[in-house]
């Protein structure tokens, strides 16, 4: 069999003092096993999943059970660029009440989480500028409305240029990219909860055509709508 070259997925787990060890080690075991299966059965050359632990400080961190796990990196020297991180896992446990109030912990999750396992409704919660927040809420509630940059900028009473700049700064991506992500998310929720045809779903989610929706799904989720329905639909 020919060896396959696959893209290595970067998985990072956020850990903290007094986290619950199975929260961390359970997922770790699953990815380790997946790596093994992919290497052996499918002859992949690189590890499919690369996992790292990140915490307030690099080095040993005592879990609630006393077990000491070693953080590979610290929040402020995290070496993986936000766009390269595929999945961010956040452990739980008693320590979350202390860790959850630390600025570096929250900032890290905002920066990384806003980029990787992206949720447009989360972006809306993070957006601090009042006028932008209102516009994001409107966008999320009206996916089928036209959303050109100039109309969105107008809504915020900003110049196009200024709007694009502030949007990128606050949300972490261009307005165009955000609109597509938000529409795909909306369509996904329709597929998960309704039985309508794709033409109707495309229409109410703001896509010009079924074909446009297909291409957006492929780009955002790397899966086509009918396959998504097959796996996750009702």
């Amino acid at each position, binding site marked *: 069999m020919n060896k396959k070259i696959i893209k290595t997925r970067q998985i990072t787990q956020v850990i903290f003092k007094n986290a*619950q*060890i*199975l929260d*961390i*080690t*359970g997922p*770790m*075991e699953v*990815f*380790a096993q997946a*790596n093994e299966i992919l290497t052996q059965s499918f002859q992949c050359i690189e590890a499919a*999943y690369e*996992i*790292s*632990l990140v915490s307030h400080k690099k080095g*040993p961190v005592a879990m*609630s*059970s*006393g*077990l*000491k*796990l*070693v953080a*590979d990196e610290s929040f402020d020297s995290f070496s993986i660029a936000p766009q390269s991180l595929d999945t961010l896992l956040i452990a739980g446990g008693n320590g979350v009440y202390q860790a959850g109030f630390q600025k570096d912990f929250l900032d890290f999750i905002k920066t990384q989480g806003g980029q990787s396992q992206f949720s447009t409704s989360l972006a809306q919660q993070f957006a601090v500028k009042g006028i932008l927040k209102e516009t994001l809420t409107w966008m999320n509630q009206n996916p089928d409305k036209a959303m050109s940059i100039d109309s969105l900028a107008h809504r915020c009473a900003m110049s196009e240029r200024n709007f694009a700049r502030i949007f990128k700064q606050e949300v972490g991506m261009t307005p165009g990219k955000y609109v597509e992500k938000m529409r795909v998310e909306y369509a996904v929720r329709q597929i998960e909860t309704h039985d309508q045809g794709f033409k109707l779903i495309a229409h109410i989610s703001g896509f010009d055509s079924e074909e446009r929706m297909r291409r957006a799904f492929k780009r955002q989720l790397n899966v086509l709508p009918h396959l998504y329905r097959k796996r996750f639909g009702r």
Partner: protein
Amino acid sequence: MIKKNLAILVFADVEVLDFAGPFEVFSVTDELNNHDLLNVYTVGLTTDPVSARNGLKVVPDYALDDCPQPDYLVIPGGFGTRALLEDEKFLAWITQTAPLCENILSVCSGALILARTGLLKGLKATTHHGIFPELEALAPETEILRDKRFVDNGKILTSAGVTAGIDMCLYMVSRLFGEDTAVESAKYIEYTYSPLQFCD
């Protein structure tokens, strides 16, 4: 009640859940009971950080030659057990320590170490389903039970792969401290408590 010592071995390429599952079960049990029951700690060959499978790094609490005598000893599995089968110093430690333990529990391929030191002779045992032949070769006088999550011989208990270690440890908690305690611990870690049906 005097706290009992529960040691969990860690070594290079140890399987993550093989040691973390038992650690969680026993430490949660202690925590839910006012820290009165068990002193749970890890023991490495040295106290240098150990790299488990897939790179998770753990700092052992003690090294073999300075660890408190365990009342209960957990031997996890993983690819790293193969190197230990050739490690004379480690095997000597197991041989010396085993008679002083009240119970010894192996998870997954940890059973190979018990087999290598003759501790499974004449007993029933199980291990990860992928290595039944390996265990059979190392322990010809051991009856291998291929369809059990874990096997209780009184002093020595062995479990099948990975998550079966959690079942065995919950069962051990019920043996030591009563079923209510085990059910409570299982509930805390959101695990289904049903170890008795798997036991031989």
